[in-house]
């Protein structure tokens, strides 16, 4: 039942009869999402499945972090880092966990300490400077 609706939705998207916003706001998708969440909750009694669900969550955090880095989204970057904390500590990387925690603490007070550094696209600007310096270093290294 869901599959047929989703298929027709997909076809409409491909044939450009509907825009991406309309499709992503469709009712079927939220129902499918609920169904998947239900399935995940059902699997939570199972130890092995729980491990793999945890793995899926970790890959989601990884994806979020990569997205934040590439789009220069500062808030998402901090959120991804704070979600990483628990797995860093669980894996026994204590020094990393400590550093990330201290980093988050100092970055959360960035707005008050250095208001000029955090102005929306400022992060992207700092980032692009950083990338150009890296490229310069790499080209020096190659020659």
């Amino acid at each position, binding site marked *: 039942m*869901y*599959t*047929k609706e*989703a*298929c027709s*939705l*997909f076809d409409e998207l491909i044939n450009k009869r509907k825009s991406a916003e309309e499709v992503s706001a469709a009712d079927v998708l939220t129902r*499918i999402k609920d*169904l*998947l969440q*239900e*399935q*995940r909750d059902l*699997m939570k009694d199972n130890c*092995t*499945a729980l*491990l*793999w669900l*945890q*793995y*899926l969550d*970790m*890959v989601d*955090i*990884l*994806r979020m*972090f*990569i997205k934040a*880095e590439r789009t220069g989204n500062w808030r998402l*970057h901090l959120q991804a*880092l704070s979600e*990483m904390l628990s*797995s*860093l500590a*669980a*894996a*026994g*990387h204590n020094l*990393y966990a400590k*550093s*990330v925690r201290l*980093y988050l603490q*100092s970055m959360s007070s*960035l707005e008050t300490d*250095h208001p000029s*550094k955090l102005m929306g696209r400022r992060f992207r600007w*700092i980032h692009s400077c950083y990338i150009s310096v890296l490229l310069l270093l790499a080209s020096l290294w190659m020659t």
Partner: protein
Amino acid sequence: MIIMSEPLDSDLCKIVLRLGGFHTKMSFLGCIGSLMAGSGLKEILEMIYAPNAVEHILTSKAIARAVRAHLLVDAAVNTLIVSKALKVSIPGLQEKSDDPPAVEDEYDHDADVSPHARPSEECTQKRHVPFLTN
């Protein structure tokens, strides 16, 4: 420490130290590798990568490969969950089940699987089934 010990009006106080994205990602991938040790992830990855490369992936020495590998395995596990939730059978997967055969070729509309990821992902699916069902 150097910045903190400087006087407030010094030029160094304007510098903000950031944690590099690349090394953060590296340590996080290392985390995933060590948390999933012994779960069969190594064996799955050995189907698409050479055993020596898998060692590097799980210890996050090879970043690009590690990201690709984790996204592939993530897509495969997600496909399995979707196929179970929506009762859609996965093409290319021989499964002994009593469920009535559902409509084929439809799973990719629902799963968030990127099209180019599918060939190697299907190899991994066969190894995945016992992990989720037992």
